[in-house]
């Protein structure tokens, strides 16, 4: 009998209590926790898949599933968490932060393994609660507002989710995803409202730009790297089963629209971190455009390079009064940081030899024709909106400490590693296509200028309104099909 992988949940919980007890050693404990988590996840790769029920209550218990997709995402989480923790060591975070972040780790690990609709609800609630706490961590007024806005949006969305799984229960008398047979359309719509609100899709997750851009550097990296993946992964998990497959075109459509609109907003945005936040909206569109392994790989890659971007840019912007891009441009940033920032940019833009290229091309292979066009536009937009970061200048410091940059370096390794291995397996046409798209992106960046676009979707009431509009549209979609 093999041990359950529930130790991936228990060990961060134990560490979180330990951090509360030994407050002074919270940094050390948190580092240990992150390393242990990486080790445990790596051990998972050596063994087969796990498909089991908590303490063997097959008909009544909670179903957990660890397959290859889950392992990939768990690996991403452990890498991002380790580097974020290492990056936070040089700053004055106290034990509160590490307590929140270790509970966050436990809940994200659990959410990836969960294969039970109600269990998904509970772990998402816990993860969201830690997210509210982390966003409001420094207690600036704007952070509090961002957090409260997210809280209201998320509570409403999760109530919809609960209603949806209630209806599913009424028809199947189980919450176990593998045993679902009958699915009324309305329940699919409600469940999707709940999960899309968590997954960083344009229109449904309009809490994201404010929260990501106003949170602390490490928190933004955790949110963008790990947190938005929770909802996205549940959606992919659900869409992979037969009963849910009718919703695939709907999600794919929303995802492509999101990937385009996200880049448009990112292109017009002046505030540095908001550019990255909008870019997350667009990249999550890439992730959710399908349900294949390519999308999982893009989720992995996006987690790595987006958290690297948030760490490097956030560290540079942190002590500045104005956070506009122009102000960052006047400032010089250290060599190592600038170098890793550029590698992350190559990753997200899809330059051959870097990780984003591999997964973007693979996602592209899976798409039908209109999807290909939409994603190409989004790829051009990504290059156009982020190209300006390449112009940041370097400041020479005589001796840069590796210890302070270790977080960046770990993430950079994975951007290059995945990219280098993957690129040799791609066709020449893919490389050519991505190069053309990049050239087009640069052209767009040089020629077009966009003024501020109205942020009407980000208002709390409108964001809530979108939920019900989505319900209506979803119902129309299902009746048409």
């Amino acid at each position, binding site marked *: 009998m093999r041990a359950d992988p529930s130790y991936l949940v228990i060990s961060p919980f134990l560490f979180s209590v330990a951090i509360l007890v030994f407050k002074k050693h919270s940094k050390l404990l948190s580092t240990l926790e992150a390393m242990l988590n990486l080790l445990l996840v790596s051990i998972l790769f050596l063994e087969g898949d796990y498909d089991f029920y908590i303490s063997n209550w097959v008909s009544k*218990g909670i179903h957990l599933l660890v397959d290859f997709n889950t392992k990939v995402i768990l690996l991403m989480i452990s890498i991002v968490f380790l580097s974020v923790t290492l990056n936070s060591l040089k700053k004055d975070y106290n034990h509160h932060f590490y307590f929140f972040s270790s509970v966050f780790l436990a809940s994200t690990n659990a959410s990836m393994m969960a294969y039970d609709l109600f269990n998904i609800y*509970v772990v998402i*609630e816990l993860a969201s609660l830690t997210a509210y706490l982390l966003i409001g961590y420094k207690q600036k007024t704007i952070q509090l507002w961002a957090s409260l806005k997210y809280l209201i949006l998320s509570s409403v969305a999760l109530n919809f989710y609960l209603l949806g799984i209630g209806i599913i229960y009424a028809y199947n008398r189980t919450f176990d995803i593998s045993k679902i047979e009958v699915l009324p359309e309305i329940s699919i719509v409600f469940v999707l409202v709940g999960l899309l609100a968590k997954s960083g899709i344009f229109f449904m997750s309009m809490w994201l730009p404010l929260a990501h851009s106003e949170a602390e550097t490490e928190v933004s990296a955790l949110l963008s790297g790990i947190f938005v993946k929770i909802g996205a992964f549940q959606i992919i998990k659900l869409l992979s089963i037969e009963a849910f497959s009718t919703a695939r075109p709907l999600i794919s459509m929303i995802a492509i629209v999101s990937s385009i609109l996200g880049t448009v907003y990112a292109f017009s945005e002046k505030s540095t971190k908001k550019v990255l936040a909008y870019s997350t909206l667009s990249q999550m569109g890439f992730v959710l455009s399908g349900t294949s392994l390519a999308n999982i790989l893009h989720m992995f890659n996006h987690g790595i390079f987006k958290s690297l971007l948030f760490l490097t840019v956030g560290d540079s912007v942190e002590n500045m009064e104005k956070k506009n891009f122009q102000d960052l441009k006047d400032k010089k940033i250290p060599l190592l940081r600038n170098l890793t920032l550029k590698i992350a940019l190559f990753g997200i833009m899809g330059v051959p030899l870097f990780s984003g290229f591999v997964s973007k091309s693979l996602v592209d292979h899976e798409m039908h024709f209109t999807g290909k066009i939409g994603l190409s536009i989004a790829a051009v937009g990504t290059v156009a909106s982020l190209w300006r970061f390449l112009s940041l200048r370097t400041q020479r410091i005589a001796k840069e400490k590796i210890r302070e940059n270790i977080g960046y370096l770990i993430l950079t390794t994975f951007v290059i590693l995945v990219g280098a291995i993957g690129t040799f397996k791609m066709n020449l046409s893919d490389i050519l296509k991505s190069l053309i798209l990049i050239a087009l992106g640069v052209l767009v960046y040089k020629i077009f200028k966009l003024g501020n676009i109205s942020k009407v979707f980000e208002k709390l009431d409108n964001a809530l309104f979108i939920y019900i509009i989505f319900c209506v549209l979803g119902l129309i979609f299902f009746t048409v099909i």
Partner: protein
Amino acid sequence: MRFKNLLIVISTIIVCLVTIVSLTDIPTFKISFEEFERIIEETNSLNTVTAYYLNYRLYDTIFEIFVFTLSIYGVVFFLNSVPSIEKHVPFNDPVMNFYSKFAFIISIVAAIYIALVGHLSPGGGFVAGIVAGTGMMIVSLTKNIDEIKDQFKIENISSYEKLILLSVILLTIFPVLIGKRSFQNFLPLGKTGRILSAGFIPLFDLLIFLKVMFGSWSITFYFIKHRGVV
């Protein structure tokens, strides 16, 4: 603006109606008594809701405990940055003083009872904790903030909470050490209908009761400290 509100109301009504219509063909599942008998055989808990809550779905409950802990922690963490109010005026009335103490004692006794028989009758740790919290709330309306602090040993609460949290986690993984699965009910099931039966269900009920009681005490204390009595 009017138009938007109208649109909101109309679309909500549409979704509402569609939901209600789609509910009409819900199948009815009858649960046979054998199924309940099997639950009792497996868990020895006469209250089958508790059997699900603390045995089959214990994994969920652990997360729930953490949600509760984290929220209390957040309340204390954020309220500490608010200056506490200078003047705290309790209701000073001898009759109320007496009866509030009385109510407190009753609430604690009731809470312990509710917590211990959670697997036999309705109730359970969570309700018990809130009942005890309500008792403390009534007492604290009549007392000074320092008196509350002394009487309820607020400064020690956080260490009790850590202890409870630790024991909850350890209880879930302890079965692994004795060759069973994690989250498994490892204690003997005992005789049906006794308080000391159903394995670790009463133990968890008690731990959750303490956890929630301390949690609601600290919510009440910090809210009153920083906001004043009603």
